């Protein structure tokens, strides 16, 4: 009931304030995504500077970065240390739980099947990838 009321009032306010209001909200959220995806790309640059594969990822919760993930496949000799996996591991350490509900994963390239499923196990809320910040939605089991 509460949800429905909130939805109705949302629709009402959109009608009242017109498209300019909606446009502003979208612009604001794009700005936030751009800032975080830029941080994922800085993780990629870091990985490259360390001699690793050119991938980066970060995990964000409530507007705070909780996990940084440069690819560490080469530097850690770890076949499973893709950028997304490292970001999820770091987020788990930061938050003190394996349950990363309400967290968003930003990654420089579309995740592979391993990383997509890892995000699924971590209960990640949403995945955004690449310079275009394409919205991949909630991660799935497999792809």
């Amino acid at each position: 009931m509460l949800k429905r009321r909130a939805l109705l009032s949302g629709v009402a306010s959109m009608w009242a304030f017109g498209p300019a209001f909606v446009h502003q909200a979208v612009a604001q959220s794009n700005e936030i995504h751009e800032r975080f995806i830029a941080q994922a790309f800085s993780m990629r640059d870091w990985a490259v500077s360390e001699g690793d594969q050119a991938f980066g990822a970060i995990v964000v919760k409530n507007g705070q970065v909780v996990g940084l993930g440069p690819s560490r496949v080469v530097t850690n000799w770890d076949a499973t240390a893709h950028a997304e996996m490292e970001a999820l591991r770091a987020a788990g350490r930061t938050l003190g739980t394996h349950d990363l509900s309400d967290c968003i994963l930003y990654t420089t390239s579309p995740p592979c099947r391993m990383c997509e499923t890892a995000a699924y196990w971590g209960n990640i809320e949403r995945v955004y990838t690449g310079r275009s910040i394409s919205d991949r939605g909630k991660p799935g089991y497999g792809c």
Partner: protein
Amino acid sequence: MADPIRQPNTSTPAAFMQRALDLAAEAEKSGRGNAYGAVIVQEDKIIGQGTNAIYAQNDPTAHGEVEAIKDACRRTGSNDLSGAVIYTSGGSPCPMCATACYWANLDRIFYAHRADEITDGGAPGYGKC
């Protein structure tokens, strides 16, 4: 996991699978994680072992297979485990673990609920994406 690797008395598939099943039981008993374990075997020797450790490490990626691959990579100093196979407890590995086996270049996946009923899961593939 820096624990020394306990090699089975005989180098049979059943013996390797029994180690994976024992690791699974240990994980559940100690509360490290859910009841899953795995070993990586190369030339009749276990070169890496792991258990599910999602609670102990606060790590959603810490499934038994992933931990075993990480351990084998660390001990061999290589991210390429070509020529090795994985014995893992439970059913067919999840897409994360199956794809981790693919990235580590493992030759074959064997899985089982019981040491005397091993299923050959074949060579790991990237899977459909």
